[in-house]
């Protein structure tokens, strides 16, 4: 199978997976009573008062398939329903919150991936030395830390104790300025918008507020990359072509950088893509503890809201968003894989 045919086949497989996802999501909502589900069809606040009509109008007591097709047609028109925790239509709320999450990912993902690969390779090359032991134990410690606990301790030390870094995305003055009319939001990312508006202090302020959450994410997530990179590298170093390369008399650095590392990177690429997708769809805990109004916190707020019952529409919208991000991340991984390793597409 050529690369083109593989991509087309893989793209076609997205359709049944997407349908499966919507089916599963909708099936789960069926466990909830019709009055709560009505919020899925609401587009503005006034309709809240007429829930009974909506239950009747959308036939929320109808059989599953009828309801499912109706919901799908609303979905395809871009109507994701009304979120009462955000007090906005779900689609709008998610668009507004996504930049905060994206900013976190943009700053932490490169550190996690590149530092993780470097430490993993070094750990494998210097197997069973003190460097290997320290890297591995630090990684295991990071992997075992409850993220909310680490975040709380960092806040206690660096905010309450030292007053260096604060929670939230921006300080008071900066967030007032950002919401004013003289500040144009090009991307929603404070660090970049600050530069584009020529307000360097906004960028600096945003960066200061990113230090703690990025630290938490790095400490917690890097362990996985280190571990996979290390074991993949160890496996590769034992392959015949590495022995061959050494026998040819190549320099050690050349063997490691050009022959071993490239081949060992394949599993790490998959992992990195899934990691980034996972972070894009929200780092629920980090966002909650640092009071960052991102997509993960949006979902958590919606799920935990008890006042007027669960915010169904928000959860559903978020779940759908997540599913799509992951399906496409998997798609990209599969295609990269097939490109790097011809055996996969020839299967």
């Amino acid at each position, binding site marked *: 199978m050529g690369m083109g045919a593989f991509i087309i086949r893989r793209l076609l497989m997205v359709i*049944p*997976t997407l349908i*499966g*996802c919507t089916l*599963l999501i909708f099936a*789960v*909502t069926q*466990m*909830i009573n019709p009055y709560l589900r009505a919020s899925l069809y609401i587009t503005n606040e006034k309709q809240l008062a007429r829930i009974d009509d909506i239950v009747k109008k959308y036939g929320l007591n109808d059989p599953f398939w009828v309801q499912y097709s109706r919901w799908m047609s609303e979905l395809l028109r871009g109507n994701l329903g009304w979120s009462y925790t955000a007090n906005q239509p779900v689609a709008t709320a998610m668009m507004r919150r996504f930049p905060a999450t994206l900013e976190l990912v943009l700053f932490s993902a490169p550190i996690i991936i590149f530092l993780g690969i470097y430490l993993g390779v070094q750990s494998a090359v210097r197997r069973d030395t003190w460097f290997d032991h320290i890297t*591995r*134990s630090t990684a*295991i*410690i990071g*992997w*075992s*830390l*409850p*993220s*909310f*606990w680490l975040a*709380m*301790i960092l*806040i*206690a030390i660096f*905010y*309450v*104790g030292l007053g260096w870094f604060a*929670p939230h995305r921006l300080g008071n003055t900066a967030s007032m300025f950002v919401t004013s009319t003289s500040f144009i939001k090009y991307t929603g990312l404070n660090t970049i918008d600050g530069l584009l508006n020529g307000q360097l202090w906004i960028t600096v302020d945003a960066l200061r507020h990113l230090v703690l959450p990025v630290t938490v994410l790095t400490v917690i997530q890097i362990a996985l990359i280190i*571990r996979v990179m290390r*074991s993949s590298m*160890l*496996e590769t170093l*034992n392959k015949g072509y590495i022995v061959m390369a050494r026998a040819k008399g190549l320099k050690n650095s050349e063997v490691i950088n050009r022959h071993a590392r490239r081949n060992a990177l394949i599993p790490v690429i998959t992992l990195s893509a899934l990691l980034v997708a*996972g972070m894009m*769809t*929200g780092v*629920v*805990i980090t966002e*909650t503890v640092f009071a960052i109004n991102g997509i*993960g916190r949006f*979902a*958590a707020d919606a*799920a*935990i809201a008890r006042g007027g019952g*669960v915010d169904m529409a928000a*959860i559903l919208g*978020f*779940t759908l968003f*997540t*599913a799509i991000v*992951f*399906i496409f991340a*998997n798609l990209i991984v599969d295609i990269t894989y097939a490109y790097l390793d011809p055996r996969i597409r020839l299967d």
Partner: protein
Amino acid sequence: MSLKSRWNEFKASIQPRKKELKFMFTRIKKSPLSIVGTAIIVFYIALAILAPVLSPPWPGRDPFMIPRKVYLIAPKPPSPEHIFGTAQGSYDIYYGCIWGTITAFRVGIVVVGISLVIGLIIGTLAGYYGGILDELMMRLTDIFLAFPGLVLCIALVVSLPSNLTIIELGSLKWTLPLGPLDKLLLALAIVGWPSYCRVIRGEVMRIKAEDYIQASRAVGCSDFRVITRHILPNSIYPILIMASLDIGAIVLTAAALSFLGLGSPTGYADWGQLISLSKSYIEASLEYWYTYIIPGLFIFTFVLGWNLLGDAFRDILDPMLRRR
């Protein structure tokens, strides 16, 4: 066949496994990290067993609900009466931490158990029979794996009913009442099984291609016999070990959910729950450190113990890395 020759046959048949086990133990003994891990887990098992002695519950009360004599809102620092202090609402942190050990083991074991059973059944069937059944099962796991675990858990905990109907046939209705913690356990298991299913399927497919499976089919073994006597014994042990070491990761996720307020009810002996009580005090002042540092240390060391063991086992069980 005489009893003695049978015994000898049995002894011979377990010989390779015994050797394998011995090899594993020598490897574990050589790795200092796994010794630390073992020590931590043994310590927690002791804590769980000794819980009624270390912090006796009030007679006639649910031992998992932290008893309290007074109802003060603000936490109180450690004192002779409450050696770890009290959390918001006068819940004794020491009591919560000790009994929380049992909760942690319960969460880990129940979740691993349920997800393993589901994963084992579905994974084996999919791997062994292949074809359309395999395709269906794998797409199903795709769907589950497409969601980030924590979020799927949140959605499930919220939407699971308090009375789960298992079977409904006319007048025959069998329901299972679900408490808040049960919902959490069930949600974690529903999220957990697809990854085991994948691994088990892979193993089954690998072993299915071996010559001895062909041979056993050729001599007329039924599918059931081939699966239970030939495939599973050759694939299941590493998976069982790896899965049991997931207890740490599961307790970590459960703690995060409890922290968000989705797990056990307020006042339940649960580490994550205890930390969530301190949420409103972190930014206020440093003086309430004991309300989150102490329960957090319990979660951290518990998970660390499992992860240290897990890391050592991963190397030991990996045939590509082990004998070097």
